């Protein structure tokens, strides 16, 4: 699947295209097929996202979306060396899918 990611312009938060808007949870990301360029151009121009790009991903059991490259998985989850600063600090296994 092809999913879209970027950063929120004001906050810098890592975000994922849900089909309607941008979410900080990679699980909400949808397959955009061949619409990536169209969507990105529109969203960037409206300043609803910044520094956006398309990446490959796979569904990964339980509807979780797994970005193909480790860099984007770290973006999705947070730094592997500070579990307390990740999106799911209370869940000790939340980072297992990253590496």
């Amino acid at each position, binding site marked *: 699947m092809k999913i879209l990611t970027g*950063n929120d*312009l*004001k*906050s*810098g*938060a*890592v975000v994922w295209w849900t089909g309607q808007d941008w979410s900080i949870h990679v699980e909400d990301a949808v397959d955009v097929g061949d619409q990536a360029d169209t969507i990105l151009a529109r969203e*960037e121009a409206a*300043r609803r996202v*910044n*520094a956006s790009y398309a990446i490959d991903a796979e569904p990964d059991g339980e509807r979780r979306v797994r970005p*193909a*490259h*480790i*860099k984007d998985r*770290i*973006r999705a989850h*947070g*730094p*592997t*060396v*500070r579990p307390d*600063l990740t999106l799911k600090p209370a869940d000790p296994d939340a980072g297992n899918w990253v590496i």
Partner: protein
Amino acid sequence: MYRYDQYDQAMVDTRVAEFRDQTRRRLEGKLTEDQFKPLRLQNGLYLQLHAYMLRVAVPYGTLNAAQMHVLADIADKYDRGYGHFTTRQNIQYNWIKLEDAPDILADLASVEMHAIQTSGNCIRNISSDQFAGAAADELIDPRPYAELLRQWSSFHPEFLTLPRKFKICVIASETDRAAMKLHDIGIRIVKNEAGEIGAAFYVGGGMGRTPMIAPLIRDFVPLDQLITYSEACLRVYNRYGRRDNKYKARIKILVHELGKDEYARQVEEEFAHLLTQGIEPPIAELERIMEHFADPAFDTAASDDLDLSDPAFALWVERNSVAHKQPGYVIANISLKPVGGIPGDASAAQIHLMADLAKDYSFDELRVTHAQNIVLPHVRKADLFTLWQKLEAAGLGAANLDTIEDIIACPGLDYCSLANARSIPVAQKIAQRFADNGRTGELGELKLKISGCINACGHHHAGHIGILGVDKKGLENYQLLLGGCEGDDTSLGKITGPGFTEDGIVDAVEKATDVYLAQREEDERFLDTYRRIGMEKFKEAIYA
């Protein structure tokens, strides 16, 4: 240390207003990201892996308690409670919001700090010797010259769109503690045969994809021509540095392609012309700056005795303290490399504590080193034990300076979008391995440096042992280098052979140290043994 006058303050305040306005125009859509990016970079604001990252300048690595307290407050108020001290003596925050950035810059300006030109294609923070003003072996304190150059380079209208970033280092001792020759311009303040003080200019050093040691371009520039000569060096670069290829745009490529003699000749020509233009500040300006760097009021009766009966304290003194020029004093190094910690990181609470310790025990002064540690430059021996106890209580007492545990590591793929591999877990595993096998002390001075990508922010080319993270078919992989050195005898590390997995590189490092322990003669450090026996025996053991 330097204190702003009304003019310096006006400049940082103006800069805050300018950036506030530029940010507003970006958020309103009047500036595109392409137009805004160089503006925010020149205020230290990167769009990074997790959020915006802010790099605050610590000019030549020097700061005081009030400034440290604000750095801690920024971590708490705008970030996630910690900061990262970098290999260019700066501090970085990883979770910054663009909408907060102007307020953060205003907070910094209130204590004479800024993030000016800490990124972008311009002259960056000027680095210096972390022991300046305290070391016994320096000719003179190099920092006034660094301050003169800082003011000259700040908002210099001709040099804000250079082909690439530009890094300057100034030292004033025979011993190079700041990797001077690995900078775009490295300056050593020297004395000539007539006894006059001037500057030796080394131009064209750097690391990254094509590491190079800066050749000597001019052996003596009189002090009253320092700015004019620097301007000539920069103008030749601005005019002729490559702009066709981002990876060949540093001045080291220009110097290499022209040859050092031709580059020097072009600079001489421009220099001769610029000398007619009256751009040099009067010597009175340098003298004015130097007044800020006079020695603190040392206690001349301070005792040189030190009670080393506590073995843990004795170890910390042995490893982390350095001889001071003033009897009764030492230079105390605070390691930010506790085993299992993140190299160079400090919590807001730790930063507050270090500020208090500086105020109480070091004439209100601290330094950031390019090895990502902190220095309290002027500590009385009589205060050292109390200081150490307070450091220990705060998790800042690691007695491992310049040992294999004192690893320089860039933030790597955990934090940096440029990285190919994570560097921090590798650093943690290596430190843990040697804490576990108990060989840290036996190995002595061993500078291990890790970069998560070829940009070499971890200075891996200059490590006695260097590690470079690469992407091997989508997986993290690590190359091992041996024999780099950043000091006077600067050398670039050589790769051992094929790369390793994360666990593999830890084993490889241990095997390399085993070879050293088996082969060393007398007082040889790892680096000395490697230089004597060469790569072969290391390769055999590592790839056995």
